[in-house]
């Protein structure tokens, strides 16, 4: 394995981590707002807040880790993506700010206003939409290199069916991942009404999630044939991913082993995410940038990898402690303990 491949694998793994934990977070915010809108808030809010409150900052760090890491391992991305993403990334930051301030002002600050809950819920849908545009752009065809610098062709971007199907996939995936996780969590909390409601959401959103995912593969055929043919070479990985998907839906349908169901779902997304990533190789931005011509020098790469391993040694035990105290602690999950400062 070359240093380039190690670097991008590490980053891709962290991006995957962000996709899962952030999806849970975004979807939960949306379900919370939706249940407030439908007047059923009493069913979900407690479950959702109990899970989200201690972990949300950790979610955000996954994203920061990814974009700091990619500039470290592949400095040229700062120039290419930095120039073209000014508007979409700024909008994503503002939306993330709305979520952060929801915690600051509502959960910690006790400012109870419906308007924040709605803003928070909606931002959870707009963030994946605005972030997923980066994946669309990376497929090429939307960036032009002019004498003055790089320019993003917004018209082409927003009229492309590929853009919109990736946006829809990101939304469906967010709601599906979140619903499956929260079904499990509500079940652990022995909250029957919440479990039933979330189980229903999980089943509903499983369909659009798988349909749009398939649709994108079809659309890539026209948009980026090179990428499409590499995807096809990895058809068996997508097959495995589909089997894992079917397993999740089956378990949820049968009301069995929600924990295993969430495990299968993680597997499904992991396999698909890496199959997509591997087929994208070696391009970071079609056709301008590959992981090889954008890579940093060897000394920096080795230093970053050493820092990464050391950092992981620090983080994994801490994350384990966090999960043990909140996610896997019976009293806390069932709401018998709060202990907030």
């Amino acid at each position, binding site marked *: 394995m070359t240093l380039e491949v190690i670097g991008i694998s590490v980053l891709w793994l962290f991006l995957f981590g962000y996709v899962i934990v952030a999806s849970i977070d975004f979807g939960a915010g949306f379900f919370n707002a939706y249940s407030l809108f439908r007047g059923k808030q009493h069913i979900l809010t407690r479950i959702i807040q109990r899970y989200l409150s201690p*972990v949300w*900052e950790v979610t955000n760090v996954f994203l920061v880790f990814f974009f700091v890491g990619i*500039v470290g391992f592949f400095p040229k991305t700062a*120039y290419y993506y930095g120039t073209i993403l000014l508007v979409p990334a700024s909008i994503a930051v503002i939306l993330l*700010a709305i979520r*952060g301030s929801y915690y600051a*002002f509502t959960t910690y600050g006790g400012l109870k206003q419906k308007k924040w809950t709605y803003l928070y819920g909606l931002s959870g849908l707009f963030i994946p939409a605005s972030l997923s545009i980066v994946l669309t752009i990376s497929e090429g065809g939307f960036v032009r290199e002019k004498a003055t*610098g790089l320019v993003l062709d917004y018209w082409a971007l927003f009229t492309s069916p590929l853009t919109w199907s990736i946006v829809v996939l990101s939304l469906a995936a967010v709601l599906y991942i979140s619903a499956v996780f929260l079904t499990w969590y509500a079940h652990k909390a022995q909250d029957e009404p919440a479990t039933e409601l979330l189980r229903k959401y999980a089943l509903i959103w499983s369909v659009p999630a798988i349909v749009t995912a398939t649709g994108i593969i079809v659309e890539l055929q026209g948009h980026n044939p090179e990428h499409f043919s590499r995807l096809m070479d990895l058809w068996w990985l997508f097959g495995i991913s589909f089997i894992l998907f079917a397993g999740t839906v089956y378990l949820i349908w049968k009301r069995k082993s929600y924990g295993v169901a969430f495990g299968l779902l993680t597997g499904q997304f992991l396999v698909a995410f890496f199959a997509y990533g591997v087929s994208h190789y070696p391009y970071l931005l079609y056709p301008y940038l590959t992981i090889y011509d954008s890579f940093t020098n060897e000394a920096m790469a080795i230093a970053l990898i050493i820092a990464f391993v050391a*950092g992981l040694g620090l983080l994994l035990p801490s994350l384990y402690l966090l999960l043990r105290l909140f996610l896997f602690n019976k009293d806390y999950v069932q709401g018998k303990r709060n202990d907030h400062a």
Partner: protein
Amino acid sequence: MGNEESIFFSRVLTELTLSFHIIYATIGVGIPLMIMIAQWLGIKKQDEHYILLARRWTRGFVITVAVGVVTGTAIGLQLSLLWPNFMELAGNVIALPLFMETFAFFFEAIFLGIYLYTWDRFENQKKHMLLLIPVAIGASFSAVFITIVNAFMNAPQGFDLVNGQLVNINPVLAMFTPAMPTKVAHVLSTAYMTSAFALASVGAYRLLKGSKHVYHKKALFLTMKIGLIFSIATAVIGDFSGKYLAEYQPEKLAAAEWHFETEEGAPLMLYGVLDDGEVKYAIKIPYALSILAHSNPKAEVIGLDQFAEDEIPPLYIHYLFDIMVTIGMWMTALSLVYVVGTWLKIRFVSSKWFRWLIVLGGPLSMIAIEAGWWFTEVGRQPWVLRGIMRTEDAATTSGQVDLMLLLFAGLYLVLAIGSIVVLTRMFRKNTVEQELADRELEKEGDLR
């Protein structure tokens, strides 16, 4: 939008984001240490007041951290969005501390979550306090790593530039630049100092507003003592910073001191105004600049005459420098008088007017932080990477920076108003007296 405008708006937006973020960042670095000291005192002295102090500070602290996370994410991304050329170069040489900063913050975020939600969960209070140590370490190390990057921008090293290509890159050498020790020490000690004075300001305000509770008196005395210690430390570090500048960035020191001609036995200019290139109304302290720069009243200090016209920072940084130093000196004196006065039981330190001075000290310290950052950033101009890359060559070519500036300005306004409203409501609604009484009831309830 032309490229000049892109550069201008990129600078304004970065300045705005940093000026806003630094408030939350400073508090975020300093307060965990204050909470730790208070909780430790509470456990050691078996004093419920100090424990409650730690608890109430924590509640306020998480709000500032949450906002700080938001603004920190903004500046993290804006570095690449607004300065893509700089980040491409920086990524090659100084990415290591940036990367490590995310780990430090990760570490802090995890333990802050745990600490926040485990009050009363442990029989042994000390166990709970142990959870705060990683928070404080993570917070301080975030500051260390980010300041290392800033130090690199002032005194880049750890690579060679051959025909425009970066070669012989040494990431570790790039971290330990000559600017690094003084800068890191200065940022840390001022963060602790400012946080202490901000908390003292709150305590003094409560006392002025009619609360006679000993809780506030303890809080005030504790924070003023901590503030005094760190303001003395800051003054000592400031002296070293002057010597660093004289050696490695003489143009910055010369511009800050309006030191135009290279000379021996240079005087220090305090205050004054610049009128047509002539200094008026300044206080001139003979030999002081030579002492500051080289610890020797006879030493030669390089003046602005040694530099090309277009490599000199704007001369208004003198005012920023004066504001920073004056406030620092003032706060040292104020806290010294207060602490000594309290020991000797001199009455005027608990008088109304003196307490108002302490209230004023919190905002003043924050102004000093802002002035200090503007000074160091503007004082590095025209370079983004001193001697290597000019700011104008680093900026984005995108035409929508002005629009983004408006968006972010709106965001920061909402965040500022929100945090002020929430913080004041939080502590006004739930007063110390009431909370102490509630806790007493709770305990009796347990016995019954």
